């Protein structure tokens, strides 16, 4: 699993990247009450706003950690947005992206690096 400074995580299986927000991000947001996942087929560039996650208080963008095409969105979050809080780095994933450039994945932080980054916040 790799991580961004915007607190997204990525898990890569072949050229398919599963993307979600980290446990730290989910905790900061508080209770998630609504998730807007990206449309299938949407072409994303790394850093694009990809999804929206809403708590009682506010809406926050989720950014694409790498470039590619959306091949699946987690429809289960429509009825159960709280999954993002319960299992942020598992069942609470947002989308699967068919990536264009493996090097973008390699450039992301690994877990020790992300944890060091969290420690610096």
């Amino acid at each position: 699993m790799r991580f961004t400074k915007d607190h997204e995580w990525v898990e890569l299986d072949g050229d398919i990247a599963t993307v979600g927000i980290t446990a730290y991000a989910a905790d900061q947001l508080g209770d998630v009450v609504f998730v807007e996942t990206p449309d299938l087929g949407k072409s994303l560039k790394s850093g694009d706003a990809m999804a929206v996650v809403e708590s009682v208080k506010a809406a926050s963008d989720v950014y694409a950690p790498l470039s590619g095409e959306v091949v699946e969105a987690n429809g289960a979050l429509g009825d159960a947005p709280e999954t993002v809080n319960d299992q942020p780095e598992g069942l609470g994933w947002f989308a699967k992206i068919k990536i264009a450039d493996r090097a973008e994945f390699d450039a992301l932080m690994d877990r020790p690096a992300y944890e060091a980054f969290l420690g610096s916040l």
Partner: protein
Amino acid sequence: MSEEILKITPLNSAHLAAGARMVPFAGYSMPVQYKDGVLKEHLWTRAHAGLFDVSHMGQARLRGEAPLIAFQQVTPGDFKGLKLGKQRYSVLLNATGGIIDDLMAARPDDDGLFVVVNGACKDNDFKVMGEVLAGQVEIERLENRALLALQGPEACVVLAAHIPEAASMVFMDSAALEGFGTDVLLSRSGYTGEDGYEISIPAHEAERVWNLLLNDERVRPIGLGARDSLRLEAGLPLYGHDVDESVSPIEADLAFAVSPKRRQAADFPGAGRILAELAGDATRRRVGLRVLEGAPAREGAEIADADGRVIGVVTSGGFAPSLSAPIAMGFVPPAFASPGTQLRVIVRGKPQLAEVTAMPFVPHRYVRKL
């Protein structure tokens, strides 16, 4: 935002000890939530009793020869008729009938008028009152007092254990009394739609009283996040968001604050505009909206009619924990203000179905009779 200029309330260290997340609000560092988070804090208040620190709000005494009559020069309320032991909601008006702030004014005792205004507006409010009422009232700002709110269905039984008189008050009663071993200005009112109290105490007693109340297992500390979602469900406007100086009490759906006697006398600031609007001349009105599909519509989202024509804007909105659905408030022309009117809210470019709904969204549970 530079944090060093933020003021703190007398309960700052209590908030930090309770694990609060602090944010800048109205020039103060304030708890937006505690460990439970906004959703649980909201639901706790509706089911039990929530304790809020609202010490950022402006408290003052207005004294003079005839402070009640004087106060009518800046508000549309019948303060001349305000009885001892009673509190009234009102609005501070500018010359064109726009709302400078909304406020509570009470007579807990015979010592003039006790006024509580919004924290973000307080400096300007007291300046305006001082200018308009110069020579008629002396304003003493009570900077050495904290303000707590205890809200929820168990607020009465909790507070009565410390202050028995609290149980014999009804909604909008106000009293000056001894409680918690100190002097208390107490009102049975609040900003959540629930039964509850606002408790003004000396600042140096605040932490002790806060902890005494929290010792009761029915009471939990509640942050500003839940305070906002609670007041939204209760249909209560938030100054600076739903209401500003351009908005009249009629447009804001606060016509009840314009007393019948004062309408007849037409002797309050902006009476021409406000009376014309009461007679049907208003061009916009604050309404409640239930968002029937999609994401919560938040402040700034456009409101469109069924044909997609933009007719208004959302002034506050979010997710209603007690309804498990998004709700909002906004302004639309009167022709679209009737409950049941189907409208659209535009969220991130997408129109979503919404319906004008009578407020409050969640019924008030004020205790009006014992």
